[in-house]
């Protein structure tokens, strides 16, 4: 007796599942075992400052066509190795975000590690996704543990680093012992709500979400993607076909950051809040630790490459507006200087580079960018912060 259609459908469904699963397993085990390096769960909740990079990491981070690096963290979760931790913590402390953490370049290529070559050991306190407010907690937490550096350098990436920072400056006035207390201890109800929200939004409903899902779950997709990215013609085709985001067209911020920084511009308040937090950090460092403090401002794609900014303007039909990608950067530098905090601008040396200084598919500094920043910082530190080089 012939099987009913529904039964045949079931048969084919199970057979298809078997074939797909076997192909995927074959890719995971044999053809592309490196797919696990496409994504790593690198973070861990931290009682004092929200989340931080996992301690003692030793992983390969892979994004074919963009980077392929080995990454280590020390026992405290800071970029670097345990063997160097004590010396680094006794040197310059560098606060920052993903650009400073340098998760996209090798251990020795991060500008903080390169400073050692100039006789300036430094501890990289940055963590991906951290804002200045979180980094302020890292600084206070380390200070509360009794650790002491030679100086502190806070790195701000344009535009991510410019934020309202409500309450972060006041937090710096709290007693040092509070740095060890859970700052944002989550509650059960919030955790449940967050979990349910994540669950509700868990199904990939957009093309981007589907791609992200496949990127983290499929070796076949990772293999295809890496194959495409490795071939220049296909890589260019992927861009024109819309399979890859054009970095030049990425601007997830307010247009106010590009407009004239006059009193009516709400972006100016954010710039001032950022400068105020930096001044607060400087004050904390001088008052509590008796040490010098400086600021490093890192430009992004649109500041470094005017053509990229022009392309974005054209694509968004914003040619008629008075927009300038350097306004936020210049305003921040002016506000920081007005508060008596020394700041280093590395736009000029980065722009002078004959080769690209950021990755093609994201705005983070590449190895060349880190090299240039290291040189600039090493040249600036002795004069600005009085930090002598130690061989």
């Amino acid at each position, binding site marked *: 007796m012939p099987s009913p259609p529904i039964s045949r459908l079931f*048969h084919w469904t199970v057979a298809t599942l078997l074939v797909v699963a076997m192909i995927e397993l074959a890719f995971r085990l044999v053809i592309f075992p490196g797919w696990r390096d496409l994504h790593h769960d690198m973070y861990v909740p931290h009682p004092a400052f929200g989340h931080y990079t996992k301690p003692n990491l030793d992983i390969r981070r892979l994004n074919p066509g963009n980077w392929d690096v080995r990454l280590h963290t020390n026992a405290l979760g800071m970029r670097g190795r345990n063997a160097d931790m004590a010396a680094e913590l006794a040197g310059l402390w560098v606060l920052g975000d993903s650009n400073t953490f340098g998760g996209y370049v090798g251990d020795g290529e991060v500008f903080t590690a390169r400073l050692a070559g100039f006789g300036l050991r430094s501890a990289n306190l940055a963590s991906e996704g951290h804002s200045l407010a979180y980094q302020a907690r890292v600084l206070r937490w380390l200070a509360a543990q009794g650790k002491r550096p030679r100086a502190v350098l806070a790195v701000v990436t344009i535009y991510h680093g410019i934020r309202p920072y409500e309450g972060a400056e006041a937090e710096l006035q709290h007693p040092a012992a509070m740095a060890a207390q859970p700052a944002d201890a989550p509650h059960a109800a919030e955790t449940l709500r967050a*979990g349910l929200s994540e669950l509700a939004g868990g199904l990939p409903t957009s093309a981007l979400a589907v791609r992200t899902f496949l990127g983290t779950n499929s070796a076949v997709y990772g293999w295809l993607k890496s194959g495409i990215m490795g071939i220049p013609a296909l890589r260019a085709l992927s861009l024109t076909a819309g399979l890859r985001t054009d970095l030049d067209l990425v601007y997830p911020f307010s247009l106010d950051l590009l407009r004239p920084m006059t009193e009516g511009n709400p972006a100016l308040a954010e710039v001032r809040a950022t400068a105020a937090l930096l001044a607060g950090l400087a004050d904390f460092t001088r008052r509590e630790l008796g040490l010098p403090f400086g600021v490093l401002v890192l430009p992004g794609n649109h500041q470094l490459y005017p053509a990229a900014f022009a392309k974005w303007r054209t694509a968004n039909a914003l040619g008629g507006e008075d927009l300038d990608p350097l306004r936020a950067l210049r305003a921040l530098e002016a506000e920081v200087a007005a508060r008596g905090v020394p700041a280093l601008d590395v736009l000029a040396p980065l722009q002078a580079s004959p080769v690209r200084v950021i990755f093609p598919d994201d705005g983070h500094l590449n190895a060349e960018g880190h090299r240039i920043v290291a040189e600039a910082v090493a040249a600036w530190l002795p004069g600005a912060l009085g930090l002598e080089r130690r061989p």
Partner: protein
Amino acid sequence: MIPGLAPVTVDSLAFLALAAMVVLAAWSGRPARFRAALAAASLVMAASWLKPLDALALALFLAPPYLVARRLWGRGDAAGPWLPALILWQVGLFIALRRYEPLDRVLVHPIAIIGLSYMLFRVLHLVIEAPLLGRLPLSPLRYLSYVGAFWTLLAGPIQRYDEFCAGTETAGRPSPEMQLAAGHRAVNGLIKAFLIAPVLLNASKLDFLTAPGAGWSDALLVFYGYPAYLYLNFSGYTDVVVALAALCGTRLPENFDRPFLSRNIQEFWGRWHISFGIWIRSYVFTPLCKRLLNGSRGRHADALTAVALLATFVVVGLWHGTTPGFVVFGLAHGAAIVLSAVWGGLLKARLGKAGRKAFLAHPATAAVATLLTFHFVCLSMQAFANPLAATWAAWAVFLAG
């Protein structure tokens, strides 16, 4: 341990591949093909978890029961000295491998065998019943497939050998309606166990009680969240494997029947981890009770039954975990059943048999009994989540404000 392949879990791609392979083998209409596929899947599943030393220890754990079962197979009631010796060896080795406290300070080894507790149940069942199972086939492959079947390896349910053998003979393609129902149940199970349950687990961590500003909503989530997680995780897993077996035209025992609606703890154990409850009753409580009652020649029957019950629940607690907290869990449940029996006796003395029946059947009584039982279960399950001392300390901090 298979290079490159992570240990196979029910929510993994490898499990999907194994399951699809076994289902297609079952649907081929050839029992031998199904048995071969089941054995192969079980081997891959076990190998993905076991390191070489684990595999060696497992061989030591599984070989003697097979040899004893082989010797006793179909010999009627004449078990002789082999059976008690084997049970002693098997339980002793189990304790050594699981490293119960405080033995863990002496027995230091790296061996960790996934599903060992469930294997213990299956092999003990097999050797105890071996004299009566002569009508069924027993071969090394069939034995290993039974003890380490890929769908019941991680967390049961505990299947009887005769049911397992019947399943391997009747495997085939079920009706479209049953396929649809099984598929539906498997998807529901995956959602329960791997999507909803983890959310509740994350929200029920003990740390929330001691966090600054913790309130009663946090306390309620910690208290109810973990039991809800346990139920959803375990019953969801069971749904997946029972549905998978149903897709193959075979049957695995059910493990859950709305346990949180139980009106007393005795009823709870008939609704929660049912296959485990049946095993414990068959191979621990009933023989122990019989022995005690026979030894006393019928005197102090109630007291001896209570002793047997408490001893049984100590075993229940110890099976669930290796720390003293699990003994407390078992004793609490045993004591609750004894108290429930005493309460039933008092009611009978006061209201008579019919009066007691009417009282217990009253909706208000049933509702109160269900609520009390549910809260007792939630309270006792706190022992599963954290060490007792930590649980006690966290609640003390919270209640002290």
